């Protein structure tokens, strides 16, 4: 059994009185790609936001790369440096150029010298094929271009894990492909990825495991082929019939 880089055990979370995560148990091995799908409000985004502690779980334990997520601050920033996240709304920093967006964290968090950071940034921007826009500002780019920059920005911290929170949901259909291509390349290069998405084509091509969540619980978890060929639960079957 290879290392589990993420171990989530008996995690429960409430927003006020409303329970949003119920008894989540999940282990993610290194270099594996996991796709999480499910209807709106099922808790998928909340789950992955718990992994880099943008949300805090009330019960259970989450261990990322050997570090348990608790209230210790020092601990959290180090973990976040190892876990990259790409958001549905891109969240690029509008007052900085693309290049500066990417070099900001390496310079100030990893204390890299500026030249080294810029070389690193260009390398990742080239990987997502957007290096020529490096000196433009986010407001000047299309949605697809912005999201690819967001991926590059997260990659510049050389994370061990990449989390994607519905990365293509805010994009026009023509641009979804360019972002998915970038994500596929990343997957093929061996990154551990957890992707919340509705893009089942992507799941079929790249995912090792697919998880279906509904109402805060993991309803079904299976290897990709198995998941699409023989969904076990009725809810999964209903969901798949609606989106495929």
């Amino acid at each position, binding site marked *: 059994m290879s290392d589990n880089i993420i171990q989530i055990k008996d995690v429960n979370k409430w927003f006020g009185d409303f329970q949003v995560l119920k008894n989540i148990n999940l282990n993610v091995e290194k270099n594996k790609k996991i796709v999480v799908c499910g209807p709106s409000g099922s808790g998928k985004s909340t789950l992955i936001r718990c992994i880099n502690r943008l949300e805090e779980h009330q019960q259970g334990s989450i261990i990322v790369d050997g570090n348990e997520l608790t209230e210790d601050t020092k601990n959290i*920033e180090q973990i976040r440096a190892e876990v990259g996240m790409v958001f549905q709304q891109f969240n690029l*920093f509008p*007052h900085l150029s693309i290049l500066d967006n990417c070099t900001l964290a390496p310079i100030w968090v990893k204390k890299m010298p500026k030249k080294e950071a810029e070389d690193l940034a260009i390398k990742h921007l080239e990987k997502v094929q957007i290096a020529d826009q490096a000196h433009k500002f986010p407001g000047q780019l299309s949605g697809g271009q912005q999201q690819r920059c967001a991926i590059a920005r*997260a990659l510049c*911290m050389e994370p061990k894990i990449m989390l994607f929170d519905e990365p293509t949901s805010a994009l026009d259909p023509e641009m979804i492909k360019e972002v998915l291509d970038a994500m596929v390349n990343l997957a093929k290069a061996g990154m551990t990825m957890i992707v919340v998405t509705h893009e089942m084509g992507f799941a079929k091509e790249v995912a090792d495991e697919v998880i279906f969540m509904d109402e805060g619980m993991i309803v079904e978890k299976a290897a990709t082929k198995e998941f699409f060929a023989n969904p076990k639960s009725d809810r999964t079957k209903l969901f798949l019939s609606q989106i495929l």
Partner: protein
Amino acid sequence: MNNLNFLTPDKKNLYTYLYLGLFLISFSILDVFLNSFFKINLIFFLPSFLSFILPLTIGFIGLHLIRIEYSGVKSLDILNKNINTNNFNAILSLIIIFVVIKSLPPLLSWFVIDANFSGDSKDACTGSGACWAYIKTWFNRFMYGMYPNAEQWRINLSFISLAFLGSVGFFASEKFKKYLTLYYVVIYPIIAFLFIFFFISGGPVFFDFSYGIIAAVISVIVGFFIPNKFKMYYFIIVPITIYILLKYVFFYEELIELGKLEALEWVETGAWGGLSLTFIVSFFCLIFCFPIGLFLSLGRRSDLPLIKYISIGFIEFWRGVPLITVLFMSSVMFPMFLPEDMFIDKLVRVIIAISLFEAAYVAEVIRGGLQALPRGQYDAAKSLGMGYWKMHILVILPQALKLVIPGIANTFLALVKDTPLIFVVGLLEIVGMLNLAKTNPDWLGFAMEGYVFASIVFFIICYAMSKYSYNLEQKYKTER
């Protein structure tokens, strides 16, 4: 001439209506004009109260006649759309025009025609208009307060130097741009403080001040040759060392000698006044209230309950009380809490009080900006591993501060307009000087001229500031 219907003017007989209407309008305006400027009454044969109603009625009929939509004559259409869309608008427009015309002669005669511009004493003001000679004689006092005339060059020199040093930011080349923030937030205020409290005050400390400047200049020049790693310690240790060396080692003998000579004359802060005091107080309160307000607004959003509730309490307290009670408090209560022989200068107390007061308002304005920023920015910065301070300095504040520029400019404007309240502690800025001047036995009865003068001065300053901030806001809007 077919079907002339005076109730519904239409396009067919355009020019008839047009000429008739314009004639009537011009007649009414001419009547009012002649009446107010030359006191000629064209319709003198009518009783007096009708003399206002009649031009109004004639003009109204005229406007009614030319109210033809889509007439095809471009200027007519523009005129109609702007002031003549319906009867109500027509009457209001006429009233406004008449009021303006009627008020011009008395204003002109008071301000210019019957006014006296030159003279030294009350007797020179014989006309029924404004006595500008009064303003001219007292001009020095209004600008500089009771500061001795011979020494006023010091104030002028300080303001010019500070203005020059303040605009350095526009000329800085690329290499120095990154030091700009450090310069404006730390160095510039210190230099300003030195200028104002040593140069303008004067006294033997002047030589301390000059040594300080020399030390600073030498250390900056040498500083270019120091490697980056030591820069921070360098800038703290070296200037102080050089200063101490200069003062106590090199020129100790000379200092004692000079101390015996006439240094710059000492002018106590109670004598400072006039517009220059307005500038000094506004300037320092501006510098101090911004960082204090920034920390308060961050504190208010903090997760630590102690900091949060202290910030909220502080902000709500200062926002809930009138400034005048704060100034009362600073002049009456503050000294009670200090040990017997410690004395804090009046001006310093006032600046502290006003800065704290305005800081609470600035805090609320900045809080609005922090709240307006989408949560995603906070998320993204956190996900890159940035801690609280890095996130705020690099990502949040640059964006939030741009959002709140109009709010902050408003607060600064309010600050400038609040400075006249310092009369409560006995400091006389320009409004205070006016009140003093008008009770002078040689110059009684010219209160109006004084207030008009001060109003014009404040209007120019505040209007310019609000226009500048409006332009700044537009510039930043388009940059995003």
